[in-house]
């Protein structure tokens, strides 16, 4: 029931996108199959991250109750433990829907589906997953200092998915820059997709960028981990 509900929910999401295209035809030069590519990729990345990293979401309550101390004492990797705690199979809904939308996108784009392009898509989805997990890790780290999982990060995760559904070119310049350089959503979604679509990038990025930018997602994750480890080192238990 959960999986069906989850599938229906994210599918309803796409209906919203479809409705707008039905009415307007295109968005700043992009058509529905192209948007579907962005949509599918980002939702798949987020679905995987969500499934694995929800443990970090409940992190603040663990800090508050002191259960975090128990986890620290265990002789296993800290990060792996937290990831494993809340692995939720029901997130399959969002993943499946993203996958279906992505397949439809590839089919309608009549793209020459070379092996390299498929690899690029897979790598960028993985990069996106790392990016989102990095964001979840940061969210957990914030709870070291405020013992409240900040909804601010939710703005960038859930909000980020909504933002990356569309190519960043449709947004204002300052907004776009934030999501290229600060929270590099564009690097794991927009730029690689440019490589898949073989379109000339309105932003005039170099031709090799699509193939390299997913790595930024992994870099982001590593940086987030460092921040987390810093937080753990300075961790003062709330006691008991």
């Amino acid at each position, binding site marked *: *029931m*959960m999986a*069906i*509900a*989850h599938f*229906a*929910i994210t599918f*309803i*999401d796409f*209906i*919203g996108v479809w*409705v*707008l295209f*039905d*009415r*307007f*035809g*295109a*968005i*700043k*030069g992009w058509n529905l199959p192209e948007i579907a590519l962005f949509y599918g990729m980002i939702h798949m990345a987020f679905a995987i991250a969500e499934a694995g990293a929800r443990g970090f979401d409940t992190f603040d309550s663990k800090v508050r109750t002191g259960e975090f101390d128990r986890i620290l004492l265990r002789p296993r990797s800290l990060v792996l433990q937290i990831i494993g705690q809340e692995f939720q199979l*029901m997130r399959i809904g969002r993943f499946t829907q993203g996958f279906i939308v992505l397949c439809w996108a590839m089919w309608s784009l009549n793209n020459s589906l070379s092996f390299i392009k498929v690899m690029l898509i897979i790598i960028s989805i993985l990069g996106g997953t790392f990016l989102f997990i990095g964001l979840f890790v940061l969210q957990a780290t914030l709870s070291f200092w405020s013992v409240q999982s*900040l*909804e*601010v990060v*939710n*703005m960038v995760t859930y*909000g980020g998915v*909504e*933002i990356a559904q*569309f190519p960043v070119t*449709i*947004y*204002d310049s300052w*907004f776009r820059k934030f999501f290229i350089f600060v929270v590099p959503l564009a690097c794991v979604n927009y730029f690689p997709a440019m490589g898949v679509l073989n379109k000339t990038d309105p932003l005039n990025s170099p031709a090799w960028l699509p193939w390299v930018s997913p790595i930024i997602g992994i870099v982001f994750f590593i940086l987030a981990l460092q921040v987390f480890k810093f937080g753990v080192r300075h961790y003062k238990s709330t006691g008991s």
Partner: protein
Amino acid sequence: MRAYISIVKLRFMLLIQYRVAAIAGICTQFLFGFVRVMVIAAFYASSTAIQPMSYGQTVTYIWISQAFLGMLPWNGDSEIQEMISSGNVAYELCRPIDLYNHWFCRAFAQRTAPTLLRAIPLFIVTLFFLPEKYSMQPPNSLASFGAWILVTIGALMLSCAITNLFNISMLWTISGDGIKRLLPAVVMIFSGMTVPLPLFPTWMQPILRILPFSGLVDTPMRFYLGNIKPSSIMPFLFHQFIWTFVLILYGKWLISRGLKRVEVQGG
């Protein structure tokens, strides 16, 4: 009657205290609204066809629906869910007031307090502090404003009825997760939160009109914008009223069924 008023008052007072959560909520909704506005701006810029609503109207629609998100029946009362899953709902049954009405009053407070905290700042910011391109418009006329107030009250009652149905459905499920996920999605899309209803394809309009959810967001919006003349308010109020009435009746019937099968475990 006085009991119900005090239930509402107490719960309202309690929920008004959550100011920090409200600030976080305001920021989130502002961001989501802003993203949606930007996306709509890009869409409108890409087509020269005449649309059912002008760009400015659509932006206003998006902002107000975000501001009133708290009023949408997208979640249930978590305390009630707690009570049901822990069995403490048995205590509630011992009280000398009708359980449905009790929960309805709680829903009323739940749908008004957080909304007030969030809607007022959002209104102020989007009406006065945003550049013309992204800002909200004032109501079409004084009469439109009055009509809007009326249908918003109707929307509130409808929302409480749906919220209460959601609470009651918790009597049947263990974790309630399936419904917890499905309800907000259905409500969001069919009320006009995700995409303003006038922008949906023409063939869908009759269906959307009949469903109760349009009364939650779309109906108030149409009156605010002057999309529908204030004089035609009666059919829409009637639509809201009928659905509210039906859902309340259904809720009352459901709760009596549900309570019969509640097993209170031990202690």
